[in-house]
């Protein structure tokens, strides 16, 4: 899939060839730094970006036999919220300040369902209870400003779940909250995965969260998936030089380093992506071919795929 934005300053190639699949009951993490295209990828799945300037210029998003990238918008609308729901990073701005939490959840519930007021309210209360919100009945009557950041984020997740979707997309749901609150939210998401056998696409820049919740992880750089594998493999045996660098440069409380390894340079600007492999200006293992040819995503071992010229088309390590 490619999603480009046609702006006055040029074409922003936010998503520039992303491939992945998501299985039932699995949590797939999209990992990457700011501007890598991970959020636009998620928005593209539901066509939630402004068009124009944005456009899915090529690719498919197959869900239950429908190609969400190319079907009429009305069809996508039936999937949004009902089959695939999304939780955003900033609960503060995603919630409407002039309606109570209860009203907002009930609105969601009835967006695709037909419940009378009492039933909708009961369902909303149950959802808040599932989110471990104390005194859920009370919370229904609260306005967003009366809730703490952690509660708002959990209310957002409750809204996401209001139509019992089969896929939940969580876009950096813990970035704006403190570590102790983050732990609570991660716990809830893990519960959801096991209890509802839900599929989750978890978008984050934080590899330590990937370890906690992910089954598989896709590392995104410059609008492309550069590596995708089971989480354990990504963390213990990363194949792409970018993934390796990213893991190495993360400070960790269980190690005592005198000096942090770092990746030189900056993340690429999606309006002006480097030729060839987008990571080549920062790569330690750069070769001539990297500057001119974009590497394909190849299978290197079972379910481990990587896009890097260090591996040939059959997935064998060259060099």
């Amino acid at each position, binding site marked *: 899939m490619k999603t480009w934005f046609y702006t006055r300053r040029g074409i922003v190639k936010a998503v520039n060839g992303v491939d992945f699949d998501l299985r039932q009951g699995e949590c797939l993490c999209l990992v990457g730094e700011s501007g890598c295209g991970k959020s636009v990828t998620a928005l593209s799945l539901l066509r939630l970006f402004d068009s124009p300037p944005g456009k899915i210029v090529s690719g498919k998003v197959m869900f239950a036999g429908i190609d969400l990238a190319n079907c009429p918008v009305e069809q996508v609308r039936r999937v949004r919220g009902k089959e695939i729901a999304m939780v955003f990073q900033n609960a503060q701005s995603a919630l409407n300040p002039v309606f109570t939490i209860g009203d907002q959840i009930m609105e969601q519930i009835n967006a695709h369902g037909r419940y009378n007021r009492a039933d909708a309210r009961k369902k909303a209360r149950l959802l808040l209870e599932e989110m471990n919100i104390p005194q859920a009945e009370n919370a229904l009557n609260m306005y967003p400003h009366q809730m703490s950041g952690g509660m708002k984020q959990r209310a957002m997740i409750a809204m996401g779940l209001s139509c019992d979707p089969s896929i939940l997309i969580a876009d950096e749901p813990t970035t704006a909250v403190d570590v102790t609150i983050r732990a609570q939210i991660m716990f809830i998401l893990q519960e959801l995965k096991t209890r509802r056998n839900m599929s989750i696409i978890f978008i984050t*820049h934080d590899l330590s969260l990937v370890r906690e919740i992910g089954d598989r992880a896709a590392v995104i750089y410059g609008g492309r998936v550069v590596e995708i594998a089971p989480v354990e493999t990504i963390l213990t045996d990363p194949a792409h030089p970018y993934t390796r660098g990213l893991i190495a440069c993360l400070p960790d*409380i269980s190690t005592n380093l005198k*000096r*942090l390894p770092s*990746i030189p340079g900056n993340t690429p600007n999606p309006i002006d992506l480097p030729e060839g492999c987008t990571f080549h200006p920062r790569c330690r293992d750069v070769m001539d071919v990297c500057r001119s040819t974009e590497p394909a995503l190849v299978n290197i071992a079972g379910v481990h795929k990587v896009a890097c010229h260090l591996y040939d088309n059959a997935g064998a390590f060259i060099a």
Partner: protein
Amino acid sequence: MINKVPLLQIKNLKKYYRVTAGLIPRPLGEIKAVDGVSLDIIEGEVLGLVGESGCGKSTLGKAILRLEEPTGGQISFQGTDVLSLNKRDLRTLRGKIQIVFQDPDSSLDPRMPVGDSIGEALIVHGVSGAGERGRRVARLMEKVGLEAGFAERYPHEFSGGQRQRIGIARALAMDPRLIIADEPVSALDVSVQAQVLNLMMDIKDADGLSYMFVSHDLAVVKYIADRVAVMYMGQIVELADKEELFRDPLHPYTEALLSAVAGLRRGGGSRILLSGDMPSPLKPPAGCRFHTRCHRVMEICPVAEPAFREVVPGHYAACHLYP
């Protein structure tokens, strides 16, 4: 190595904010953002200050420079009583203690070339010749890993990491002895964060600086700090050498914070989930302020405030578990 002379001594520092509401302001109460903090920063050390948002860690940093005028307490820097300084002497002091803010976007003037932003401090502190100023700006930019030729460029032409380097260069302009770094890498991507942390370490080693490093990220603090202070609702609840604190945390809050940090390479230890959120700072809980969320709460905790005491040599905690 670190010699044990305190560069900065803070005693019982307080910063209260009066809160009012309504068109005709009626008092709602006081927010005790910093409530009786005592700390030393030793020459050449990095003191990490950790806590969640709203715990008062940034206010503490600003109060030291009197960017927020403290409500009470004492601050002494190299033997000088900071709170009694007049305007002119305070300005001299601010040359020796500098601050680096979290968001380089909003702390740099977008309409000023970065070289001028860095050089501005030199003007304020009396380096008047343009030639001399230019040379010093060039040296500072090289020191933080930027080309001196970039001095004519504007902030928007730089990436976040480069802008934070500019913020650091500006802080270094007056040859400070202490830099208060308020979440300096929180806004940066991880691959860039490591570059800036390494730079800060290099500068510290080269110039023999001290840092007060304010952060919510325990992993970053573990990397950079020598000693770590943990703050909760305006008070320091634990203070110890870094190794000691991470190996053997005494305060239940520190314990919970450490367990909440997942860590990439950590085995699956049991996690302490704190219930609820931080209480309203307008109505802090009686007794120990942490008792409403504590997993080891005892009968005495809601009643009496625990004293901040040295539990083992060099390791301080404020908790009734250690009477």
